[in-house]
């Protein structure tokens, strides 16, 4: 139950539109791999090609050592969970779960035992005789999951499985899916546009944009070390700062953002800084950064509370056109209030060449 899935140079065109372009990655056996990207990035098309619901124009798909590309949907033995559940509306919950076993002509007694087992797994034993339209969204998606798992698929493909649910149910189901996956260990591919969902559930994330793979990596690699401007801007929130490279820093107004040593002097660049990497100190307390250079000064325009965090909007001194968003623990706020002047220190910035950045946006 833990065979890896690999796709090689997949390309899919719909008419003249290239939905997926030269996509390659491997989803490790037994892990959850998230395909993360905005809508229209081609992630669902990749998933549907793995299931065999779409045929790639180019490229190959592997399940372990077996090539899936020439096989029909029916032969692939994948479990697929759809965003809108796709339950058979004229069948009961039990009949839905049994479907994959019935079409494979399994013995009736085996089918019954497997259905009972799965309904227990998804905690819907008492709903066996209900019809899909008598269930809530969360319950329907659990039935869909049980139905997909019933024939013991080698891989589980989830296409925005929580996309149609409201926030609270989504959170519960996410946690529940995490536990279920730990228990079953089936290789899973999760398509989502929700970065939080990907970061929380996945062992590996494939970030996609405009049909291409932007970066493949663990959640922490994706979050802490984005390789493209698109990933830096899409995963997690970030301050986007456009400026000119000088002495290994990106300059905009009085602000000097480090980390541009790899970029050409004098070129225009974009730096991404996470709100929690914006360090705020009262003006004068510590006017110099670690390299001894003076810190930029800004005025706190607005403070809003996000629970234990405070969100500060800071307008930088100088030309006055730049603002920064900082996330600061409430305890570190130290009585700062709106209108105060503060020094800002930017940590872990990611600088990219401007040309590169506009391609990514």
């Amino acid at each position, binding site marked *: 139950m833990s065979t890896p899935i690999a796709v090689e140079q997949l390309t899919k065109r719909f008419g003249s539109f290239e939905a997926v372009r030269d996509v390659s990655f491997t989803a490790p056996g037994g892990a959850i791999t998230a395909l993360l990207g905005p809508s229209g990035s081609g992630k669902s098309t990749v998933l549907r090609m793995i*299931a*065999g*619901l779409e045929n790639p124009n180019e490229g190959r798909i592997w399940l372990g050592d077996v090539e899936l590309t020439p096989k029909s*949907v*029916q032969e*692939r*033995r*994948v*479990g*697929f969970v*759809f965003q*809108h*559940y*796709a*339950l*058979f*509306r*004229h069948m009961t919950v039990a009949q839905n779960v049994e*479907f*994959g076993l019935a*079409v*494979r002509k399994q013995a009736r007694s085996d089918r019954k035992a497997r259905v009972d087992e799965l309904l227990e797994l998804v905690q819907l034993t008492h709903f066996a*005789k*209900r*019809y899909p*339209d*008598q269930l809530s969204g969360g319950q329907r998606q659990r039935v*869909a999951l049980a*139905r*997909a798992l*019933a*024939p013991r698929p080698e891989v589980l493909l989830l296409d925005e499985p929580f996309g149609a649910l409201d926030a609270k149910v989504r959170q519960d189901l996410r946690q529940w899916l995490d536990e279920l996956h730990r228990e079953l260990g089936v290789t899973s591919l999760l398509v989502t546009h929700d970065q939080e969902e990907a970061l929380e559930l996945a062992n590996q994330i494939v970030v996609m944009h405009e049909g291409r793979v932007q970066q493949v990596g663990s959640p922490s690699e994706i979050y802490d070390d984005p390789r493209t401007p698109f990933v830096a801007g899409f995963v997690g929130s970030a301050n986007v700062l456009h400026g000119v490279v000088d002495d290994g820093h990106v300059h905009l107004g009085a602000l000097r953002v480090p980390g541009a040593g790899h970029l050409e002097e004098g070129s225009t660049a974009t730096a991404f800084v996470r709100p929690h990497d914006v360090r705020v100190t009262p003006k004068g307390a510590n006017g110099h950064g670690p390299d001894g250079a003076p810190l930029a000064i800004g005025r706190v325009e607005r403070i809003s509370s996000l629970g234990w965090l405070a969100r500060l909007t800071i307008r930088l001194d100088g030309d006055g056109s730049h603002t920064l968003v900082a996330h600061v623990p409430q305890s570190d706020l130290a009585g700062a209030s709106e209108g105060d002047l503060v020094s800002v220190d930017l940590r872990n910035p990611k600088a990219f060449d401007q040309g590169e950045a506009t391609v990514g946006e």
Partner: protein
Amino acid sequence: MRTPSQPPVSLPGGGRRRLVRSLIVVACILYVGVLLLLPLVGIVYTALEPGWSKVVETFSRPDVQHAFFLTGVITVITVLVTTFFGVITAWVLVRQRFVGKSFLNALVDLPFALSPVTVGLAAVILFGFGGWLEPFFDARGIQVIFAVPSMVLVTIFICIPFTIREVVPVLEEIGKDEEDASRTLGASILQTWRKVTLPNIRWGILYGVALTIARSIGEIGAVLIVSGLIKGKTETATLFIFTAIEERQEAEAYIVALTLAAVSIVLLVGIETARHRIEGRKVRT
């Protein structure tokens, strides 16, 4: 305009508004009642006025029995053909992408736009003496025009849209997801059709069948042109009514007409009732 916070009675002109509303309702009842119900009442009255013995006598006539038999044969063949091809065509129109799809979609409605008489004349052009296809069938000894084959053909032509137009919206509404799910669960295309698609569109198909039956037992224009009106051979129930009126056998004509109307009404009401019962039961459990 009335707003929810204001009670209707306190509004000036409220009474007049109510009066206008009542007048509209009454007008609709009169419109539908007079135009639809009155003719029906007329037929029932005229058909049953001569008494029950006339009804028995009419139905014992061999030519009447043959007319009903022929209508039955044409209807059964039409229903089989239009349902089979109609469901496939509907599925192709909804699920497949191909060049000329919108043209096919428009073409399906052609029988609605044509007068049945035109359809009959078109059949004469194809199968009549000197017609385009006449040599082909003549060489094989098949009589098409002035015989049952052409009557079946024109009836099928006229009934093509019904099943397609009933099934297409149902297929569109249920979407493709359930069919995809079935395939990923290991079902073949045929299994998917039988276990997922067909059960989902069965009411659409049944409505299509009901409309097709109602239309084909009532069809006269096209059938009249291609039948040649050969008594006891190409005379359907509607053609019997047509000739009976000409021969001043009004009672017989009305009795047959009433029978046809009754079959259609029972069929449509029956399907509607069955659906409410079955769907209702499912929701209650």
